[in-house]
């Protein structure tokens, strides 16, 4: 029995715990066994079995004593290695932070522990969340538990939250924290047949999360059902005075949004998302998604987001610019790696050359360039103006519709070496997701089905600011219509 506990959903596990069918310790043990069994996926950078068992034991004791329980009491979770965890190594997937043990806890993870959740360990990710494949991690790539039918080639889980996606998909965690700066929750969710939501900018505190691009970064959950994401987000979100961009708005019980009722809701189909040379399978799934919602009583309307094609190049000015500034703190003085040098500058330069991987160095260089004297107006200011136009597109579209339906990604999961050497090809993974970050809107990816090779594909919903409820409501209908029950073979 207990060997299958890791197959439950969060909602199912909460029910089982409440009925005393099993204990939080047994639940954690089932996950620790799965983690040990699937170490070849390289999903975890650090496993914290002792912490998991003591947190689970404490949850069992709270339950036995009939104390007040949290929304995630006894639930085993994986934590992306971008979240600072008190006394537990936090690296952001980078050599420059190897060995760094924060003396404090991020607000989001602190909220989860307050809700009774149990930490299994820290999961792998693209270095500083820069990547769409998890291949940029200093700690090695992560395997996607899914394989193409009749082909044993190892596929990437997407990124940057690749470890989160792989751990959830391979039943090595009931859910995971993740972050999304350009698609880093939604793209890996789509690649692994899991659900992931990037909430509205400001919904979750960024305090204690290693910063990449501060005006775009947002934390969110990944799990195996829409409801599980609703439960997790409810515990993660909330106002935090320590993050001045965290908003002081009430967080509702998102599970109540899962009514299944989308009658009269207006769903927008942005015509500019129909890319030239789009995969027919992606197009078919997108059409199917619209049909499911129509059948459930929603109204489907075409909308126009005319500046869509400029979103990625805009992002590749803004995100590297903010990153070059944020990552200036890694200088070999206060924490992390130091490579000795003859002078202070020499020490800085050697430390940063050795500590940062290729993609991170590339983005810091782009960011430094677009912010440098003489180029600031031509690039950075230009990108900020484009960002205004992209935001205006969404303002206009949301006058006519309540949510927008798009594919999550332009393709299914790929293997290392397939288009992974050309940075621009890699950046195109985020073509459907990056707009939501630029405008700060919430987006969810829900599994829609399998492609002809047996790999999962995702559908994305983008909603109005702070209307996560609409995403859960419509996402729930997509989920039940898609009836996605496929599992990666062997997990």
């Amino acid at each position, binding site marked *: 029995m207990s060997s299958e506990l890791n197959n439950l959903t969060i909602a199912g596990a909460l029910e089982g715990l409440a009925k005393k069918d099993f204990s939080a310790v047994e639940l954690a043990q089932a996950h620790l066994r799965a983690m040990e069994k699937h170490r070849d996926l390289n999903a975890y950078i650090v496993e914290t079995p002792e912490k998991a068992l003591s947190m689970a034991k404490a949850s069992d004791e709270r339950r036995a004593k009939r104390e007040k329980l949290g929304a995630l009491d006894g639930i085993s979770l994986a934590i992306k290695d971008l979240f600072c965890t008190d006394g537990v190594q936090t690296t952001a997937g980078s050599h420059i932070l190897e060995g760094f043990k924060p003396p404090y806890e991020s607000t989001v993870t602190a909220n989860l522990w307050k809700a009774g959740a149990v930490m299994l360990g820290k999961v792998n990710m693209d270095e500083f969340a820069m990547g769409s494949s998890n291949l940029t991690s200093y700690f090695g790539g992560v395997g996607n538990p899914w394989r193409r039918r009749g082909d044993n080639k190892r596929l990437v889980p997407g990124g940057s939250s690749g470890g989160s996606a792989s751990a959830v998909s391979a039943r090595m965690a009931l859910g995971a924290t993740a972050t999304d700066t350009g698609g880093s929750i939604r793209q890996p969710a789509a690649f692994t047949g899991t659900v992931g939501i990037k909430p509205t900018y400001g919904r979750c505190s960024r305090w204690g999360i290693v910063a990449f691009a501060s005006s775009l970064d947002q934390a969110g959950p990944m799990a195996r059902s829409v409801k599980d994401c609703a439960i997790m987000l409810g515990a993660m979100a909330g106002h935090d005075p320590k993050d001045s961009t965290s*908003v002081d708005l009430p967080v509702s019980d998102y599970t109540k949004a899962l009514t299944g009722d989308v009658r009269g809701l207006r769903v927008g189909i942005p015509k500019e998302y129909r890319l030239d040379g789009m995969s027919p399978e992606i197009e078919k799934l997108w059409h199917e998604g619209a049909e499911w919602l129509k059948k459930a009583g929603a109204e489907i309307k075409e909308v126009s987001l005319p500046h869509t094609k400029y979103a990625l190049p805009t992002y590749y000015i803004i995100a590297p610019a903010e990153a070059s500034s944020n990552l200036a703190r890694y200088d070999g003085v206060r924490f992390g790696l130091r490579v000795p040098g003859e002078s202070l500058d020499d020490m800085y330069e050697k430390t940063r050359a050795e500590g940062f991987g290729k993609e991170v160095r590339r983005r810091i260089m782009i960011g430094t360039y677009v912010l440098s004297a003489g180029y600031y107006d031509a690039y950075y200011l230009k990108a900020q103006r484009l960002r205004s136009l992209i935001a205006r597109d969404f303002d206009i579209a949301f006058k006519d519709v309540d949510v927008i339906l798009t594919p999550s990604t332009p393709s299914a999961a790929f293997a290392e070496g397939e288009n992974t050497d050309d940075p621009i090809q890699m950046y195109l993974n985020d073509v459907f997701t990056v707009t939501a970050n630029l405008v700060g809107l919430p987006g969810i990816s829900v599994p829609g089905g399998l492609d002809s090779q047996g790999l999962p594909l995702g559908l994305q919903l983008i909603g109005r600011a702070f209307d996560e409820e609409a995403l859960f409501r419509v996402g729930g209908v997509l989920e039940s219509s898609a009836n996605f029950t496929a599992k990666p073979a062997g997990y």
Partner: protein
Amino acid sequence: MSLDSKTVAHIAMLARIKVPEAELAALAKELSGIMTWIEQLNEVDTTGVEPMTGVLHRNLPQREDKITDGGYPDKILMNAPDAAHGFFTVPKVVE
């Protein structure tokens, strides 16, 4: 925009990342490719469009200017690659 090795060396210096001389040309080519792709933004007339600096349409909150945290130098220094006598250390900067 085509970046030459000299420009890349200057950017690397500004970013405090050591780039070996031999790698400058290849890096210049790679960065030029990305910048050229980015320059499609010039197709869009943005005259009179306000630059967007963030997505929150509200003023950032202010708090009282007082010390609310601190007093634990050991915790602050525990991750330092080199600390001495309660301080961070750096290579000699004054001759």
